[in-house]
């Protein structure tokens, strides 16, 4: 059944990577993959006539598995009570809203037509926890980004200027944690937070190590590209949530502009949830949007990609690897605060937060996300996220799509929000509306491409048979009909995962287990041997877990697919 032939018949197909823009055509799936031709009969037919067909959604940045989101679940029983999910014959029960249980996370992504999701921050020491949760998160394929930016060995090799060891370390830690990309959170700031301090910008120094965030970012970016990793560095900038921080963000992007991207990719840095890092002004009283300035930089610098971190007006739970920021947010709000430092490598914090329409700063933040999406011209370089659950739960994606596609939809929110949104942002002057092809780009095609997931995000021959079918007719749809759009994107008519129908009429009808991707980098044996000498002695002295017990064992990845990278070429 699972691998049976399937034809998605007669829909309007949006497949930007193959330059298909709303053509009426069939998608043929055989053995779980898209094929050009299918002979014989007996294939199951999904009638998509009059509907919108896209490759399965690919979320580039979401907090869905591991210690942070689980702290969020643990600390917020009040969040769960308003969104309960009973079990059915095919699905497990659970809870939803801002910190959904693992099973519900899998179901709800699938219901929106998403089939691939990236966990955005994995502390290596608790990588087993991330993978255990991913194993209990059904349906979609997944990967997790390993935290590097405040790791003791990163700081040590950056300080020593030893690029070879840094590269060997990246290769080793990605394998040890079964990670997919180099994630950096507030470089240097999280290490300083272990002494109760932070960094205030790119050229501040990390205590005891005497290296700067600039050195950390540029060294990791260069190592990333020299190794030829599929994705760029995935960076949460310094000064998140600090008015005036757009300058730090631009400086950070600019710091890596001369680093040569690996072959086959033109970008060298992905800046995450930029909404939180695009604030102009001096303080929370006079804060205003810096989105225009960021967009201007991005429009003229092809080495950068961004994701939004769009704000939703709702009660949510913020969680980042940025410990000092979470303490700051706790002090701003008085809301409960969990801090979680991880020895030698990382940290995290979790604080509940409610974004309110009548709060001037929140209204500006809401507008900034959309301004970025609309001011950056190239949809291949800006991706839709809410930084789930930081800007808001991922279940609000359909609303974000409606704001992108309908000026009327966003105007209604603007009229209902604090007037700062009119005065201190440019959103009311923006007339651009995304079309279906652009939505398909920012939600699947471009994200798959920048992640280097070659069989995702498109429907060409050989692609994974991941398809979403939305019950909306793109030929007759108009922006005034944004409510219909939201409805269609909330409950996909069909979600097909690897050729199997997993959602029908918005309901989960099958719950298969997805694949976990990770990146397996080869480096020269001598380089690895040198690295191991350091690891052996310093693990013994400074970690509380033995080196032999540290790497994630294969038992934790029952369905895994390593992407082999030969890092020796640029050595």
């Amino acid at each position, binding site marked *: 059944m699972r691998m049976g032939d399937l034809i998605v018949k007669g829909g309007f197909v949006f497949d930007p990577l193959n330059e298909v823009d709303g053509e009426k055509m069939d998608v043929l799936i055989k053995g779980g993959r898209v094929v050009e031709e299918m002979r014989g009969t007996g294939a199951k037919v999904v009638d998509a006539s009059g509907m919108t067909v896209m490759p399965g959604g690919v979320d580039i940045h979401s907090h869905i598995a591991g210690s942070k989101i689980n702290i969020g679940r643990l600390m917020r029983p009040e969040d769960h009570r308003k969104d309960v999910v009973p079990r059915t014959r095919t699905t497990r029960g659970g809870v939803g809203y801002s910190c959904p*249980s693992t099973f519900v996370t899998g179901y709800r992504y699938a219901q929106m037509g998403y089939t691939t999701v990236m966990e955005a921050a994995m502390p290596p020491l608790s990588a087993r926890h991330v993978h255990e949760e991913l194993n209990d998160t059904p349906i979609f394929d997944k990967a997790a980004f390993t935290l590097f930016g405040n790791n003791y060995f990163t700081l040590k090799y950056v300080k020593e200027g030893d690029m070879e060891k840094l590269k060997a370390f990246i290769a080793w830690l990605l394998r040890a944690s079964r990670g997919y990309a180099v994630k950096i959170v507030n470089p240097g700031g999280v290490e300083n937070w272990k002494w109760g301090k932070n960094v205030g910008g790119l050229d501040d120094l990390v205590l005891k190590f005497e290296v700067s965030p600039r050195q950390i970012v540029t060294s990791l970016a260069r190592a990333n590209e020299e190794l030829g990793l599929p994705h760029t560095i995935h960076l949460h900038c310094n000064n998140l949530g600090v008015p005036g921080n757009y300058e730090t963000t631009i400086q950070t992007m600019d710091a890596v502009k001369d680093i040569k991207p690996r072959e086959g990719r033109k970008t060298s840095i992905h800046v995450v949830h930029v909404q939180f890092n695009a604030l102009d002004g001096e303080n929370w009283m006079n804060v205003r949007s810096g989105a225009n300035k960021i967009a201007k930089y991005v429009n003229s610098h092809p080495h950068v990609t961004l994701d939004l971190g769009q704000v939703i007006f709702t009660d949510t739970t913020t969680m980042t690897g940025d410990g000092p920021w979470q303490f700051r947010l706790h002090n701003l709000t008085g809301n409960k605060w969990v801090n979680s430092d991880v020895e030698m490598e990382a940290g995290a914090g979790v604080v509940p937060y409610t974004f309110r329409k009548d709060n001037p700063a929140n209204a500006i933040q809401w507008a900034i996300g959309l301004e970025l999406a609309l001011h950056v011209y190239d949809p291949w370089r800006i991706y839709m996220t809410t930084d789930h659950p930081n800007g808001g739960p991922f279940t609000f994606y359909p609303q974000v799509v409606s704001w992108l596609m309908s000026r009327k939809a966003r105007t209604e929110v603007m009229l209902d929000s604090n007037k700062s949104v009119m005065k201190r942002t440019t959103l009311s002057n923006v007339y651009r509306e995304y079309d279906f092809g652009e939505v398909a780009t920012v939600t699947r095609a471009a994200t798959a491409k920048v992640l280097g997931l070659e069989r995702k995000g498109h429907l060409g021959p050989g692609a994974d048979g991941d398809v979403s079918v939305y019950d909306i007719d793109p030929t007759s749809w108009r922006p005034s009909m944004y409510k219909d759009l939201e409805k269609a994107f909330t409950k996909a008519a069909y979600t097909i995962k690897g050729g199997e129908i997993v959602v029908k009429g918005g309901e989960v009808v099958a719950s298969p287990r997805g694949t976990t991707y990770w990146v397996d980098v080869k480096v020269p044996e001598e380089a690895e041997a040198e690295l191991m000498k350091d690891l052996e002695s310093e693990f013994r002295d400074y970690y509380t877990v033995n080196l032999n017990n540290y790497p994630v064992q294969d038992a934790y990845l029952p369905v895994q697919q390593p992407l082999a990278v030969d890092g020796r070429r640029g050595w």
Partner: protein
Amino acid sequence: MVVHTDVVCPFCGCLCDDLEITVEGGVVANTKNACAVSRSKFMNHGKNRLESATVDGEPVNHKKAVDAAAEILARATRPLVYGLSSTECGAIGRAVELAELVGGVVDNTSSVCHGPTILALQQVGEPKTTLGEVKNRADVVVFWGSNPTEAHLRHLLRYSGMPKGLYIPEGRKGRYIVAIDVRETRMARFADKFIKVDPGSDFELLLVLRAAVRGSKIEAEGVAGVTAKEIEELAGRMKGAKMGIIFFGLGLTQSEGRHMNIDAAIGLVTELNHHTKFLITPMRGHYNVGGANTVITWQTGYPYAVDFSRGYPRYNPGEYTAVDLLARGEADAALVVASDPAATFPAEAAMRLAKVPTITLDQKVTPTTMLSKVVIPVATAGVEVEGTAYRMDGVPLMLRKVVEPHGEVPSDAEVLDMIIERVRALKEEA
């Protein structure tokens, strides 16, 4: 002879991962690096084992016992699944699945140990850390209502007292260690400073200490049996730390005030973060009680006391906690996994366990197995089967299998899978 190295200890929340276990002829012959308790667990794991599955005391094969268990659970209207803190995470996940399937309640032992810690966390949060940060940086270490010299035997050695860390190169000499307790324990004698608090007065002491940290002048001569001078001195020490930590135990969670004590302790630590870096971490007892909370939370959103009677999870400690559910006479069947509630619960709750059909999965003869209708012998996680456990600070480690299961018995997870399958079949039939 085989020597297994880097073995993770399945006894307490320290989860020491440096044991060497020597196996000769399929039997554990020796241990190295293990504390006395750990050594005893490894050396004696084959003793006093349940020799057969039983139903009503009569030996039966595993299949019959599983069938009997499934029938009890499928027929019950308010079944309780309890224990889970001394087994691996795979079994815990299946226990939740089974509780959901039968519309029952799942609870773990934290409802009688660090449950109040979790309630406080849900109220105010918790600034915490993994233990390596303590080893590497903490120059002020406070043990409050906790005695690692008796309960977590290698904690001081590996994490919090003796070790030389990255920024504490002097080891023990580089740390100022404080013990706060109601009596002078061995821990008190190990510490640089012992503060004797009046029983039931920790809350007052915590609040006044917090006020002192804020710079308020203490007008009373003393509070909770501690002089104002001592309190001010301690506040000064804490504020002056480069990095500090409070470890607390059941002396704080299970004494007068319970979760309010933890709330106050967290308030104190949060306050200290305006002056320096200060953190707090509970001393979890059973080796995988952390895992029990962790797995149940990711599957249901809640850490313990979870009720599935409506098909979706609901949470209410005090109502869906095992002791309460049993003492009220509400539970009409029980499944106990890796725990011995008959020995530890209040009499009324334990008596209810004897009254209702109770199913117990365990390795050894215990008071709970003796009052159970169905007893199913299982393998020992971390000795005879692999799996995951979460250390007291949330670090997950992989448990090892060093010997074959005694009498080739299945693991907790395998037995639970069999029960789940059988309950499904019974539900289909009905």
